[in-house]
């Protein structure tokens, strides 16, 4: 029986400062690490600024990863904020620049923000687009916009299966359950979200719930789509 | 190093140069009350110097080296200039690193010695010219005071860059015509003693080296206070006879003129009240020691 193994998946996250794009990349990489996969994650290296364009990258694969720096040619792109597309709050244009053939774009939006030309170019390269209203989902479940990144992580996981839910739960435990070294801005946001919940467990629960709900939705979506991540066939 | 460690290996003592045999036998290591008065009756810690004949810096060196209370546990940090020509000849370990970074080097040195010898007073003393202290190194001079580093800074103030041939310096008098100040210096002599006190030095003295008693007292005070309280600063007028056009024998007169009433170097001292009390106690201790020593001799 041949067991397919997922090839390297390079994920680029574009959002706005304060949305948790860096945390999302770290969580994906940490979960992959827990599954025994190789992974690295890094932020876009710039000054930390609220609401300024922010990017982060997670690289996950079956063998050791050496690639460093900005991800110019990603397999998956996640857009955390509609303004990345509508107001060009991004360092690349168009936002899907560099996407590989057969790739996937996940957008936090309930409306189609792409022009006809965008659709044409993406279709030509066989790139799938999945829109999910992650912010609304976050408000429903976590009662705060700060959980948007969790919903987006869930959406990515449901569509790509790059990491599984139990590993993500462990990664969340590591990230929010223990003392964590974060830079100034991230530390402040960590405090803000912790204050929102009486107990650490409640925060973890809300995050987990947001991830699971989005996972279920995108899992449903991917069944009806032509998207399939690249795999190696192994013996 | 304890005085007991400053000794020669017996098996090779008889081939050691005379100056070292004499240093081990008669230098005043280990005597806390060593003094400029020992000059002549004991081996000095300065062997020879390559300064100009009659240079007041050479006098200052002799007074300072005979006054420091614990040469066996003292490390000097110097800087580029005439002083660095003398340092290899001195019987105390010393560092030359770059021009102007002496107070930074001393900060690291003092802290390392504190880490390595927590139970010993290892005295660190910076000795540099006015260019190094006030111009190129001013940042590091003052930052070491802000940080309250436990060492003494001594500045040989000759009011110009001597070693490079007499250029304008921050401690030069206003109006003095020199290289790089061809129309005369345009701004006042920097008031570093006052600045030092404001910057956190617990004891500050400014004087000439014409009177050995005064130099000795200022140096001892500065070292003792640096051990207990924090940074201390001593500024000594050591005129460059060469660059101000004086003869070898005229250095002393130049200093005496400068310290006369109305001169630039009338002796001044700044210290906190706590330090004043502390130094009074130190004086009393020294007197008691001397009295006891005298009694022991006569008994």
């Amino acid at each position, binding site marked *: 029986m041949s067991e397919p193994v997922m090839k390297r998946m390079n994920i680029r996250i574009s959002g706005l400062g304060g949305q948790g794009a860096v945390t999302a990349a770290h969580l994906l990489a940490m979960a992959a690490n827990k599954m025994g996969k190789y992974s690295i994650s890094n932020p876009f290296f710039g000054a930390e600024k609220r609401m300024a364009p922010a990017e982060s990258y997670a690289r996950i694969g079956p063998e050791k990863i050496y690639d460093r720096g900005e991800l110019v040619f990603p397999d998956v792109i996640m857009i955390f904020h509609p303004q990345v597309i509508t107001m060009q709050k991004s360092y690349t244009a168009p936002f899907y620049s560099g996407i590989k053939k057969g790739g996937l774009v996940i957008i936090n939006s309930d409306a189609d923000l792409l022009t006809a030309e965008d659709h044409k170019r993406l279709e030509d390269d066989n790139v799938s687009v999945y829109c999910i209203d992650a912010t609304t989902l976050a408000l429903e479940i976590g009662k705060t916009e700060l959980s948007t990144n969790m919903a987006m992580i869930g959406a990515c996981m449901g569509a790509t299966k790059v990491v599984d839910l139990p590993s993500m739960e462990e990664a969340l435990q590591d990230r929010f359950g223990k003392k964590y070294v974060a830079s100034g801005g991230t530390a402040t946001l960590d405090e803000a979200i912790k204050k929102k919940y009486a107990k650490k467990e409640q925060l973890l629960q809300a995050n987990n719930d947001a991830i699971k709900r989005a996972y279920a939705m995108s899992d449903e979506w991917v069944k009806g789509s032509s998207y399939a991540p690249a795999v190696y066939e192994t013996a | *190093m304890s005085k007991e*460690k400053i000794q020669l*290996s*017996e098996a*090779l003592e*008889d*081939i050691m140069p*005379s100056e*070292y*045999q004499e240093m081990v036998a008669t230098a005043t290591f280990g005597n806390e009350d060593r003094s400029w008065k020992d000059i002549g009756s004991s081996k000095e810690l300065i062997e020879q110097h390559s300064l100009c004949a009659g240079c007041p810096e050479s006098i200052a060196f002799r007074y300072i080296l005979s006054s420091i209370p614990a040469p066996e546990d003292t490390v000097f940090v110097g800087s580029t200039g005439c002083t660095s020509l003398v340092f290899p000849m001195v019987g105390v370990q010393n560092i030359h690193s770059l021009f102007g970074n002496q107070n930074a080097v001393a900060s690291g040195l003092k802290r390392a010695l504190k880490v390595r010898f927590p139970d010993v007073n290892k005295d660190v003393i910076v000795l540099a010219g006015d260019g190094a202290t006030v111009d190129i190194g001013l940042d590091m001079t003052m930052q070491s005071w802000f940080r309250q580093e436990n060492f003494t800074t001594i500045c040989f103030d000759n009011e110009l860059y001597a070693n490079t041939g007499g250029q304008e310096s921050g401690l030069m008098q206003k109006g003095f015509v020199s290289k790089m100040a061809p129309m005369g210096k345009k701004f006042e002599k920097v008031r570093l003693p006052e600045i030092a006190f404001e910057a956190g030095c617990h004891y500050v003295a400014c004087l000439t080296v014409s009177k050995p008693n005064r130099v000795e007292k200022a140096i001892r005070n500065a070292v003792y206070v640096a051990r207990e309280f924090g940074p201390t600063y001593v500024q000594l007028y050591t005129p460059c006879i060469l660059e101000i056009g004086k003869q070898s024998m005229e250095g002393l007169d130049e200093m005496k003129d400068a310290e006369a009433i109305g001169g630039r170097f009338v002796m001044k001292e700044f210290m906190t009240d706590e330090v004043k009390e502390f130094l009074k106690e130190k004086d009393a201790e020294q007197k008691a020691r001397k009295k006891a020593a005298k009694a022991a001799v006569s008994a």
Partner: protein
Amino acid sequence: MEQYVVKPGPEAFLPPAAASMGIVLPDPGEAHYEGRIIDEEDAYEQIARKLLGAKVPTIFPGPLVLWKWNEKAGKKAEAIRELANALPARLIPMADYRPKYPKIDPEVEINPNHPNLTIWHNKIDACIFVGVHCHQANLALKIIRGGTDCFTIALCAQAGHEDACASFRDINVEKIKKLTETVKRLKSEGVESQALPFTQIKMTRAGRVA
């Protein structure tokens, strides 16, 4: 390119550092002779023969043994004295590393900044460096190789000196004594000292004796 050999000079206006010519220091248990790694056991005899064959063999003890800054230093000084007596060899101290001013007396001391004055003046053809800080020893050894024909030997307490013509490493009191024993054994086997007659210069606080 031919393998570099660390031979006595005069080699060049500015001879290269042996390490830059591919000479590697011995590992523990080894020594080197002219840049070739040899067993430490063999080094005793080779070096003892070289010293016995010299006309003006001289030992330059440095500050680390001249000063009794610890017990070991005092014992090393004794062992060095025994070696000097056994050969016999002159003792000329390297008391410190300062550039002396205005000049040194080359009969009574050697200075790392101008060692050749002492080598030339006394016509020293084989010498031992011992108790000199490694950096200062290497400076002097290079300068000597550049301008004199003196065969240099290092008894190094650390990693040894590729700039000497021959070098021990990890030297201690026992090893110095072993070298002395080797000298004595060779002499008893008939190897005669070629040293020219000399009187060891001695110093007091007042100056030179005799």
